[in-house]
């Protein structure tokens, strides 16, 4: 379970973070949320689908990493085997929290950097392994600054996703999708509960909408998501190779 607290250079002065990639640290995930601004990198490694947050039913784009729960085909003994690691994976053990901000008015909040105190990535001993969060003088380390940059990207990405998804839904450009993958050992993996771009609808969009989508950057994202389908085949090959 997660237990987030606001990051503080006093309490967390000596904390270090293990940045290696393995199931032990919770990297064995089947898919992860992604954002249009990283689609270019994502689509070069992973298929992009859309799925629903079970708590809210809201749709979001996701990078597929495996074919079943807890399976990440990009994880090997030597780490994460891909040229790009998704923002939502890199953010750990940090998260954007929100704190009351009375200066900006009643009920206003401001984003703050929070840390999962229960994360297995945290190191609290006297050693030197891992990345420090704060320099001796209490200023953020390069690692923490990079992490804050990641959180800021995610924060913007979440907002961007809202607009992107709303536009896709308004034009009925998403459709449910199920995929049956038969592996070399004859086993079947069925992917259910995912959504993808409705290409027929896309092809029938009028010029005005296309121009609007282009101006908003959505058009490029849509085609990157479609192109990312090609990444399924290498994943299947990877899985078959693991079966031997």
């Amino acid at each position, binding site marked *: 379970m997660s237990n987030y607290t606001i990051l503080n250079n006093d309490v967390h002065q000596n904390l270090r973070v293990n940045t290696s990639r393995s199931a032990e640290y919770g990297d064995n995930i089947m898919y992860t949320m992604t954002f249009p601004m990283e689609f270019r990198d994502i689509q070069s490694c992973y298929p992009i689908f859309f799925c629903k947050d079970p*708590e809210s039913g*809201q749709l979001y784009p996701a990078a597929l990493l495996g074919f079943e729960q807890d399976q990440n085909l990009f994880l090997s003994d030597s780490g994460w085997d891909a040229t790009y690691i998704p923002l939502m994976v890199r953010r750990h053990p940090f998260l954007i929290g929100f704190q009351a901000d009375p200066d900006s008015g009643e009920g206003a909040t401001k984003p703050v950097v929070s840390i999962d105190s229960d994360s297995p990535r945290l190191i609290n001993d006297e050693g030197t392994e891992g990345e420090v969060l704060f320099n001796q003088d209490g200023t953020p380390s390069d690692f923490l600054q990079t992490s804050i940059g990641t959180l800021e990207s995610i924060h913007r990405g979440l907002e961007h996703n809202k607009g992107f998804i709303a536009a896709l839904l308004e034009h*009925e450009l998403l459709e449910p999708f199920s995929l049956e993958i038969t592996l070399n050992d004859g086993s079947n993996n069925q992917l259910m509960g995912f959504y993808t771009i409705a290409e027929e609808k896309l092809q029938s969009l009028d010029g005005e909408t296309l121009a609007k989508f282009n101006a908003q950057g959505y058009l490029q994202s849509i085609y990157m998501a479609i192109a990312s389908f090609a990444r399924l085949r290498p994943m299947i090959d990877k899985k078959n190779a693991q079966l031997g």
Partner: protein
Amino acid sequence: MNHKINRVVIVGGGTAGWLSAGVIAAEHCIGSENNNPGDSFQLTLVESPDIATIGVGEGTWPSMRSTLQKMGISETDFFRECSASFKQGTLFKGWRTGADDIYTHPFTAPQSYTEINLAPHWQTAREQINFAQAVSPQSALFADKLAPKQISTPEYAFNVNYGYHLDAAKFAEFLRKHCVEKLGVTHIKANVTAINSAENGDIASIATDSNGNIEGDLFIDCSGSRALLLGDHFGIPLCSKSDILFNNTALAAQIPYTDENDPIESCTLSTAQSAGWIWEIGLPTRRGIGHVYSSDHNTEERASEELLSYIASTVSEQAAAAATLRKVQFSPGHRAKFWHKNCVAIGMSAGFIEPLEASALVLVELSAAMIAEQLPANRGVMDLVAKRFNDKFLYRWDRIIEFLKLHYVLSQRRDTEYWRDNCEPSSIPEQLTDLLALWRHQSPWHRDTNNTDDMFPSASFQYVLYGMDFETLASQTQRRSEQADQQRAGRLFQENAARTQQLQASLPSNRDLINKIHTFGFQKI
């Protein structure tokens, strides 16, 4: 005789009026610009600003989902604006013996119902598990007050079948807005002062106090039990069914929750009383609790005592003390016919019967759908459509009355005259008597409801019969398929138990899901 039917006028703006307007307007293009003004279809609803709607029908069938969907209504908006909740069926208490007995009528048919009749196979296990629980996961779900779906399930789709509980006044207002703003229905607020006849006896127009004469080709009477057009004007009599179904009075109360996070029931509760039964309907904002009884068998004083004692024991003493009861009297029955000349009645003007199986709104949906689909092309063929309509709905009323009566005749209660009278053979329709004799030897299945106009599927008969402890005797002869069927039935019972557990673990509470609909809304996909 051959003028086109272009102008439809609905008189009355309760749930029946606006639901009919929505169903018809969603099917026909109103005032479309491509037509000549004289040719285009017009739908007008005239509503009295002075008469309050009665607000019956707070429970729907699953059919309401497709009715709303066809009208182009967002299910999220419907939930948010009509204080709607999920209804998965009915839970009956005290109907069998008057003690703590319970049975359920869920909306989901038994497992693999189209392929195999599980009822005979359940008979051998009837001492161990009740019928509804053995064949469907749904009654276990509503016993736990769970929702029939998740927030990630698309709008109108489900894990298990469902209808709604809703606030009838809010629903009428919600439909009005949708009809006027989205579907092009013209709304006139005026009182009807007279009815002007044409030479052939048709209604030519209705005179109003503030809007002059409103002409029409077809008039739909949604004026409530008074039946302004079909009853008052045309004199079509009411056929009383009080010799079969005795209940004719209702006392209704609206009871707030003790805590705003109290669980919301996801079924209608129906608890038998000395001379009637008490309904309980859970909305997100309040409970609707009422007592429907026979005034020939009970006094108003005693009936209200029973109702208040129910509220005191299921909610709280304080709630009972604070309750205001509203009395509604009705004559159980329906009009001798529903469509006469160029006038057709929908809703309470067509008939009314105790809400034991929430048949009021579904009849409105079906009536409006048939009018929308078979809108007569001209006055010449209207009488033919009218005859079909009358035949169909007389048949449907008979089936509803029989099905409601079934709930009473199976009771073992003899503690009051009401229950004894209910089992008098003279009060039981002949067809029902015949069916009961047949069902003694074979359980109802598809052959029993093979007419598309049947209101209740045979599965509903199974739930009531076996819920009420009716026994169908084992077959006298051995069937060739018996062994294979038995094995299959055994597997299906196990599958149902597994599915029940899986759904119990994955479905949110009714209250939680409704809160999420208010916060996030359903997705269309």
